């Protein structure tokens, strides 16, 4: 028996927001008479932490402490439209809507504060819950006092609404795929190196280390970014070596109907995970953020496949890289067909071998 070690590498990109855009998010904010801030948005928090991130964006944008924010996404009567929590859009698109709403609230606070302080709003700024005159910090009024003045003195509601929508990018030439506008908001980038150990007698693959780098634009909450990256890494590991709804695909036999016969990664599968964050700000995300929630499970499978090849000289190109596929690969020791300048792998999997000819993958030589 021998355990073989291998390393592999992959680099990927992923778009933020719905493909071709056209996916709005809206938000509105009101200020209570004591200056506390109520945010209403329709973004579901599926664990990704959008309640937290959007609250942080509002606190930062208005200039008040985080714990002054209440965030309500609980129902469609009070919350405006959010297309949803998918397409890595909850921070990028929905967070931008919240930022726009918060900017309006900030503007209104400055306007009322200007009246109270008799200073042009343009000469005021808000810091940590206080409206302060630029260059004259002794001239100030607290946001709670501004809110009280608005409510009881000026007869005004401090409120703000915002929406984010990138227009739908139509495919104007379906034959070529040409679009009339950019079909994405921002693109995020990542790279991953994987280290594996392969048992050449049982075919078992153990992923021992994942080293990953993500350009997140701006980590609005670094801890939550880590949570996305680590969670994604383990899902990528599942994709790479464990999970399948159809163990004998394309057959539908022997589907696992329970944990134990469907192999989701557990704590004992956890490799060492090292992560490097790059912050190259996006143009139109809130505070330069990019969406990285989804791409977090995309780089590991190809890095693992390359690492398995490095370890045992076998390309397994059907996922997951099961022990059986490893053993079959070791047994076949398949070499690509070389013909002229062509190097052809995996011919037995191709439509050219399986279809009766109605569909072919023709490659010019």
């Amino acid at each position, binding site marked *: 028996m021998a355990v073989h070690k291998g390393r592999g590498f992959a680099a990927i990109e992923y778009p933020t927001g719905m493909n071709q855009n056209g996916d709005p998010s809206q938000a509105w904010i009101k200020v209570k008479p004591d200056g506390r801030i109520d945010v209403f948005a329709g973004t579901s928090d599926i*664990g990704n932490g959008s*309640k937290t991130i959007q609250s942080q964006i509002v606190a930062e944008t208005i200039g008040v*402490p985080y714990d002054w924010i209440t965030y309500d996404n609980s129902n*469609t009567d009070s919350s405006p439209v959010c297309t949803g929590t998918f397409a890595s859009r909850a921070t990028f698109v929905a967070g931008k809507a919240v930022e726009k709403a918060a900017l309006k609230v900030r503007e209104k606070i400055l306007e009322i504060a200007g009246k109270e302080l008799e200073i042009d709003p343009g000469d005021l700024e808000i810091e940590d819950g206080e409206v302060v005159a630029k260059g004259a910090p002794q001239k100030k009024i607290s946001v709670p006092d501004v809110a009280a003045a608005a409510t009881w003195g000026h007869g005004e509601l401090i409120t703000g609404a915002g929406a984010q929508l990138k227009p739908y990018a139509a495919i104007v030439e*379906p034959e070529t795929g040409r679009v009339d506008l950019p079909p994405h908001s921002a693109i995020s980038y990542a790279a991953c190196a994987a280290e594996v150990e392969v048992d050449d007698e049982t075919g078992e693959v153990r992923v021992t280390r994942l080293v990953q780098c993500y350009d997140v634009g701006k980590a609005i909450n670094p801890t939550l970014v880590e949570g996305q990256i680590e969670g994604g890494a383990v899902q990528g590991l599942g994709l790479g070596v464990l999970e399948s709804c159809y163990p004998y*695909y394309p057959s539908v036999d022997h589907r696992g109907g329970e944990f134990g016969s469907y192999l989701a990664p557990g704590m004992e599968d956890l490799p060492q995970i090292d992560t490097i964050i*790059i912050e190259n700000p996006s143009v139109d995300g809130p505070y330069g953020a990019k969406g990285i929630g989804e791409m*977090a499970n995309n780089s590991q499978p190809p890095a693992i496949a390359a690492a398995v090849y490095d370890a045992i000289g076998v390309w397994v190109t059907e996922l997951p890289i099961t022990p059986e596929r490893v053993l079959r690969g070791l047994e076949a020791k398949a070499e690509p067909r070389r013909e002229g300048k062509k*190097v052809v792998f995996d011919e037995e999997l191709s439509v050219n071998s399986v279809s009766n000819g109605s569909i072919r993958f023709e490659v010019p030589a």
Partner: protein
Amino acid sequence: MKAVGARLPRYDGVEHVTGRTTFVDDVRVPGTLWVKALRSPVHRADITGLDTSAAESMPGVHAIVSWKDVPLLEYGHLAALGIPADEPLLAKDDVRYKGQPIAVVAAEDEATAQAAVEAIKLDLNEQPALLDVRKAFDSDAPVIHQWGNWYNHFEAEMDRRQIRKGDIDWAFEHADTIVQGVYRPAAIEHVPLETQVCQVVPEANGRLTIYSCTQALYFSMGVVAAHLQLPLNRLKFVGGTVGGGFGGKVDTATETMCSLLALKSGRPVKWRWTREEEFLCSSTRAPWHMEIADAVTKDGWILGRKMLTLHDSGAYARFSPYGLTKHSFHHTGAYTIPNLAFDGYAVFTNRVPTTAMRGFGVTSISFATETHMSRVADVLGLDPYEVRLKNANRIGDTSPNRVVYTDPSTVPTIQAIAEAMGHELPADYRTMTRHTREGELLPEHLVAQVGNPEDH
């Protein structure tokens, strides 16, 4: 103190660790009926008989809903993107996957609901199933969908998603080597810890309060409103707190059926899928079949890529045409390839319809293109980092859709990993930047594709 960039605690962190977060299954409404579904026991069949009368007369059974009860039976969830409807909320004439819902029951408790499901008389005439996307085009393949075996409503009623860029024949003619491979990532489950769950309460004012685990409150509300043919102000979705989704809860899997049962019975109803239903009947990430041929030079330039994708959509279209389009837009990965010919088909098979999942449409292409990239480097005997850095997209390069990249970070992410892994790069690769191509990084074959970043 700065809020953005700070490691602040979760907004709902204390709720989570005290067990007080209210998920849909934690909502308590007195008088709630339990829901169970009659599902197809086979992969494909014609429905020749459906008789719910015996089940309806069972004590404790309050309502049974089948296709006859649905005001708008077929509604395309992505109709707004031009993808027409093809899937009935409840099966009418035929079933196309094992587990497809045919009727739903609301009864006093779970056991009664299950007993009623078993008392529904269902007659099926089983038909051969199509399971291999590679055989879907064959003349002897069973035709399993009203549109044929693959989606045919892309723009201009094309039956495939097509990308063409540059001169593919030139690329293959001028290649030193052509590397071909096939890539097949599997269907996987989303496995949120919270299974699909819904509670619907018919209110005295005629509205429906719908407690939902959807990832997309307004999207799902639109789906329910369309099937029920009701204005949005008749519905109130309550949710926003979801026990994991990963894409699977973009499907509006339970809300519409529960709403129909609540309306018919006049009682609150609740449906929580078992883990077994979640594993066997809920939509999955799609399996994909991808074939790539890259035309490459001996020093590692990728001159062109030809690609065929068969997206195993399962029994109905759902979001698959969208996913395939997104897939096609990213089929060069993080690299600039000037000459492209991509053909992709969203193929129907008799398996559970597939849906969005983390990385939708792109997880597959990342696996295929990156594994292929490693292979290309290996075939050419070149360093896998260097080949990638060379072809990496840069500011000013154009995507498969001719969109100019304005802020790609492929180069710095690769360099960061090389450094972290102690992978020694030559000096010129260590100091490369993501900036506009010039000099040796702008060979003749890449000149024409360069665009103007100011345009975007």
